[in-house]
């Protein structure tokens, strides 16, 4: 029996919580939301507590928070049209605002670090995807990609290759690769009939699953001959009655979805398709906006102003 056990409910944010992300190097969880702050949570003496609140960076909703691969930096995507970079100072044990990246015309929706930490990607309602090159403390714009015809909701890096993926209100997913000293769109994936909210890769990166406002998940498999080409092998419908806002493919193989019906669902891969292995109804008292795995721990963020931590039991 696959199930989720509620480990903790973390309150502290005022207003919707939009995003949660686990540190790659420690059991620290970062969360962000409407109240413009970023909170870091850790288990201390058996209970989960907020150890730090970062404020004064972004001036509007922080839509997404993302850890750098080294675990010493956080990037935040905000509706104030900027991306803030926070850095951990070992000497003072404090987090400092290291940079504010400007350039997007309006709301930044998502931000992601490449696996090697050399690049940062951001996307916005202005329909563009930006690639920033990380050079010590400097962030230089390496490319501005204007291929989507609508609001871009999410950017995600391939887990092993230097490939960037973006999901949009224009119902497509696009992939970008380096081209000379610039970046270019290599492929566009169509299939969803409404906004694609997110996507998540399996460990090796030969598959990803995308989630959409059209209430379906799609599983995409990599073409053997072309690294940038993925083909939709199955459409998972009938399980979600409301939009699916986020999806996270855990290392153990379980795929979690965050949906507009307050529920979290877990899926397992079966052949090219997915099998529902657990439905956590009423996981929150509002829309679930984001889910993130770390080992057997799953964090979820919701409109009900809380973050919840769950343990996977199989």
């Amino acid at each position, binding site marked *: 029996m696959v199930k989720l056990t509620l480990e903790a409910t973390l309150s502290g944010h005022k207003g919707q919580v*939009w995003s949660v992300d686990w540190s790659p190097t420690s059991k620290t969880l970062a969360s962000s939301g409407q109240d413009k702050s970023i909170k870091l949570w850790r288990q201390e003496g058996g209970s989960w507590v907020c150890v730090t609140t970062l404020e004064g960076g972004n001036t509007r909703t922080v*839509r997404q928070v993302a850890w750098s691969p080294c675990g010493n930096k956080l990037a935040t995507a905000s*509706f104030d049209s900027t991306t803030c970079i926070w850095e951990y100072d070992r000497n003072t044990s404090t987090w400092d605002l290291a940079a504010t990246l*400007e*350039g997007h*015309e*309006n*709301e930044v*929706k998502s931000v992601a670090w490449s696996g090697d930490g050399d690049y940062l990607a951001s996307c916005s*309602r*202005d*329909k*563009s995807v930006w690639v920033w*090159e990380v050079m010590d403390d400097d962030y*230089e*714009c*390496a*490319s*501005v990609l*204007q291929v989507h015809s*609508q*609001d871009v909701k999410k950017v995600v890096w391939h887990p092993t290759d230097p490939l960037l993926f973006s999901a949009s*209100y224009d119902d497509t997913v696009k992939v970008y690769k380096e081209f*000379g*000293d*610039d970046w270019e769109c290599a492929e566009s994936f169509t299939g969803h009939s409404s906004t694609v909210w997110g996507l998540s890769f399996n460990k090796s990166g030969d598959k990803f699953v995308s989630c959409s406002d059209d209430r379906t998940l799609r599983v995409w498999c990599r073409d053997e001959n072309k690294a940038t080409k993925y083909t939709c092998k199955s459409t998972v419908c009938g399980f979600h009655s409301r939009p699916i806002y986020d999806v996270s493919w855990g290392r153990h193989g379980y795929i979690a979805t965050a949906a507009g019906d307050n529920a979290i669902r877990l899926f397992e891969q079966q052949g090219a398709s997915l099998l529902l292995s657990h439905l956590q109804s009423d996981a929150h008292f509002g829309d679930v906006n984001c889910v993130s795995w770390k080992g057997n721990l799953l964090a979820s963020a919701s409109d009900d102003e809380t973050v919840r931590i769950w343990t996977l039991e199989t």
Partner: protein
Amino acid sequence: MNNFSGALRLTDLNDFIGPSQECIKPVPVTKSKKRGVVKLHDDGALTQNSLPLQKETISLTDCLACSGCVTSAETVLIESQSIGTLQRARVETHKSHVFVATLSPQSISSIAHKLRMGYVETCQKLIAALKCDGYKYVFSSVEGSELCHQLSAEELLNCSREKNLPDTNSDKSVNTSVKKPVLASACPGWICYAEKTQGAAVLDHISRIRSPQSIMGALVKSVVSQRESVPYSQVYHVSVMPCYDKKLEASRADFVSKEHDCAETDLVLSTAEAFDLWGNNSTDMMEGRNFDSVLTDSPFPFKTPVGGGSGGFAERILHHVARSLGASGPLEMNFKQLRNKDLLEAVVVINGTEFRVAKAYGFRNIQNIIQKIKHKRCNYDYIELMACPAGCLNGGGQIKLEDSGELSEVTAVYTSVSTDEIKNSKPLLPDLFLTSYKAVEKSTSALNTQW
């Protein structure tokens, strides 16, 4: 509108204040003296005192001063500067008006490449086609570039006071309040982007010297009206440029003659549009054709300025700076590539004084330069900033190329006639060639936020 440069497109991108939103500008209504009775007819038509009501239109100039919705501005723009509009104007006014044209060297190079012809031949072919078509004068915008370079050099010298330069005569003529690093003003894609998204911190750095196109605009109609003894407003000036962004530039309120209440440049055609009109005309009567000159009575040479396909601003301006400072001989400028092929810098020492210049093309490089300026970490004297990756020969209005390798062939056409010795007499009134920029206020329409 993929014809516009990327920088311009970004500012237009606004899905929720998009096409569906109505124009927020109040339409100026010309009041009629008599109180009218407006009647709604069964077919939905409106009449006033039984005459059809005139539909009020918003001009592009209105749109440019507003950031409410750029979409309608684009529509107005495309409509007002189309081949159709030009042909209508030809039919309606060819008896009363003197038609003249200015051709950009980037457009000529693109057409030359398409026709597999040399630069000079292509010029002659286009001049012949235009003259046959009834155009009385055909100018080269290089003549405007040259003036632009000279004036920009004076402007640059003037804001380089900290360098303790010897006082040169020209110092007094062009005194603008521009700050260093001085950014080129020739690219309307960049200018519109800066005005729509940046404040004084960036706008204060943009050269106040007009672009080559609008320098030509400042001269052409007055010169032709004198030579032909026709009123200013009866000269129709068409300009052929490598991008749609130049159509926007020509529509700026600054480039409408206040005195004559008439646009200095009536219509801008993209290279591809001009090719459709004149590119396929027969090649007879090319012999002996020459560019007319606005400043002199002798023909203007078939030349392009050295310094690459974006107009050679960095090279030519520094060349004139060197001349003003009394340096003789050719100016050695070795540009070295920085982080990408569209970002280059050079350091030149003129009589012991160091000048640092850069060329930055494409939106990403514009971004990085803007950030450096904002953080006061940009120590160049002058930057040739252009919105299109690879610069103007790659403008959105150029004839489409099969593959990117062809761009170097177009560049080769352009540089085959490049020179650093284009003679020009100095115009008497530099003020005529200045312009200004102002930030467009953002309309804070926080319409339904979308997550």
